[in-house]
């Protein structure tokens, strides 16, 4: 009976059988890439058709040649951005979904977790995770975007910015849960309830006020993401999902919903997540994320290696509905052409677009501009700057793009 080989033996045996000259090693290129991008050193045979491959395993892993990485800041109060330039299609792999936490990621026992609904209701209740899963469920695809996404690119665009840095606080997932409207009907929401408070079970007990109209529209309580339970960083075991609305209000680790008659004016909807505007004022409860797009490929730090055809791709999304069109300018905004939408543009979900570029070796600036079905179009940076000021703090959707130099080098172009 043939003996079973361990993964390690397989790899070692491969190297021995083929000789040192016939193999290459693939592993972490530099320590700076961080733990998320590191992995075991794998020996690559010169001809993989001449020996057995690796055995099956309990959990899949990326090819050792593929090493995407978020950009963690290493703080409990901080963010970690999605490497948009590494992705394909509209969905973000769950382990690359951006993070923004205000008190770290809590470890929550799902068996003990409860969602309480109280306040202006006929029957205040607590629901376990098992309880929630007995209600009629829905599965829908939505993006989540932190409203601070792109702040640095708006205030101080720099040539060495990457797509990850410019727009990496937007991720898209397929979510499964129960419509909030179903739960609010179940508890008998009173007719005078006009706002509800959502509270998370993290160490800051994150709280945001939400108009009841959103609950009756498309709000969800979700427990699954891309075919499996939520990742801890995305709110395991439960999160509020308010499609199209700024990331912070999609309260993670959700434990409580209180129905009332006015917003609570929590720290996160007064001191933070309000938008200073010209005229000595600040906009509050600016929930919807504005329509937005970014070309993710090619993008800095890639270099176009040769003249000829390239599939220019990117992502477009709107917090107000569907993206109806994406235009690409091959000449810095002088002329605009329609890009192809690659698949259905779902409401409040990112859609990938494509534009075939024939690069002839000249310098050119590629820009993208999305329009949604609510009639909004991305503005040039100068227009957004005039309307909101350099000191505005959230909701940056100015047109951005990339400059291609004569040698093919690509740099960020933020001065649309």
């Amino acid at each position, binding site marked *: 009976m043939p003996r079973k080989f361990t993964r390690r033996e397989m790899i070692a045996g491969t190297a021995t059988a083929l000789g040192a000259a016939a193999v290459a090693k693939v592993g972490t290129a530099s320590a700076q890439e961080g733990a998320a991008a590191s992995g075991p050193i794998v020996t690559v045979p010169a001809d993989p058709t001449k020996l057995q491959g690796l055995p099956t395993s309990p959990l899949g892993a990326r090819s050792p040649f593929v090493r995407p990485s978020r950009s963690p800041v290493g703080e409990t*109060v*901080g963010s970690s951005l999605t490497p948009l330039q590494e992705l394909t299609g509209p969905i973000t792999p769950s382990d690359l979904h951006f993070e923004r936490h*205000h008190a770290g990621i809590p470890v929550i026992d799902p068996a003990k977790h409860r969602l*309480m609904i*109280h306040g202006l209701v*006929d*029957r*205040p209740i*607590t629901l376990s995770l098992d*309880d929630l899963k007995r209600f009629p469920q829905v599965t*829908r695809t939505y993006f989540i975007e932190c409203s601070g996404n792109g702040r640095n690119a708006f205030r101080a665009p720099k040539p060495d910015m990457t797509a990850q840095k410019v727009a990496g606080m937007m991720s898209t997932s397929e979510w499964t849960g129960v*419509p909030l*409207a*179903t739960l609010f*009907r*179940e508890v008998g929401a009173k007719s005078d309830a006009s706002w509800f408070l959502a*509270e998370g079970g993290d*160490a*800051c*007990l994150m*709280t945001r006020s939400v108009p009841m109209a959103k609950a009756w529209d498309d709000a969800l309580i979700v427990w699954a993401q891309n075919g499996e339970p939520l990742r801890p960083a995305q709110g395991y075991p439960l999160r509020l999902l308010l499609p199209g609305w700024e990331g912070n209000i999609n309260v993670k680790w959700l434990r*409580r919903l*209180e129905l*009332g008659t*006015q917003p*609570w004016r929590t*720290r996160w909807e*007064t*001191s933070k997540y*309000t938008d*200073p*505007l*010209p*005229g*000595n004022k*600040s*906009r*509050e*409860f600016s929930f*919807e994320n504005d329509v937005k797009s970014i070309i993710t490929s090619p993008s800095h730090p890639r270099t176009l290696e040769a003249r000829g055809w390239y599939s220019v791709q990117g992502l477009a999304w709107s917090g107000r509905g569907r993206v*109806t*069109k994406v235009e690409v300018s091959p000449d810095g905004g002088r002329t605009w*052409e*329609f*890009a*192809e*939408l690659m698949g*259905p543009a*779902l*409401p409040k979900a990112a859609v990938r677009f494509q534009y075939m570029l*024939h690069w002839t070796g000249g310098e050119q600036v590629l820009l993208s501009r999305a329009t949604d*079905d609510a*009639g*909004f*179009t991305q*503005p040039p940076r100068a*227009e957004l700057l005039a*309307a909101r000021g*350099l*000191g505005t703090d959230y909701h940056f959707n100015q047109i951005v793009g990339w400059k291609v130099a004569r040698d093919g080098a690509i740099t960020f172009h933020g001065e649309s």
Partner: protein
Amino acid sequence: MRHAQLVGLALALGPVIGACGREGNGPAVDASVVVAGYAPAPEYKAGYFGIGTSATRAQIAAWDTDIGPDGAELPAGQGSVREGEEIFRTQCAACHGASGEGMAPVFPALIGRDPRGESFDFASDPSIPRTIGNYWPHATTLYDYIRRAMPLYTPGSLSADQTYAVTAYLLAANQVIPTTAVLDAAALRAVKMPARGRFVADDRSPTTR
């Protein structure tokens, strides 16, 4: 928007979207894509499913600690500026700085009335620090936030008296109340913040950024 409307809109827009494309740069939009909409949730009657456990008064009271802008839920207790200064020194200053100047980028400045901020012209310059004294519209928010989220490594550990005291110290240090003040529920409800009235509703439209 309902399903039928979405489909109708997609069909109406299709020919418009598809009618372009520069010569030599490949195809434009595939106008045949019909966009999916989502059906609204069925309107079940209250209690239809009978799922869940009634929440008891004690359960609700244990979690329902939020303080709204009218301060109706503020608990009994009181605290002085002087008491708050001592708590700030021992429990807050390590992150927020001895003078409440903060430690960027994680720990925000709490204290400061930069002259450039007094006119609330924050849109002109992101470097003007936004603090409790010049940006927070409601004093009740301060009490609510301190009690729920602070101190960072022992959240929820401050008593009602201590929370009133720290709130009082921060308001006094931001020149909102006198340094001799003692705060309780009534006094905190009466505090009017300098930035109150500066906040406006979301008026974004396709032509209003």
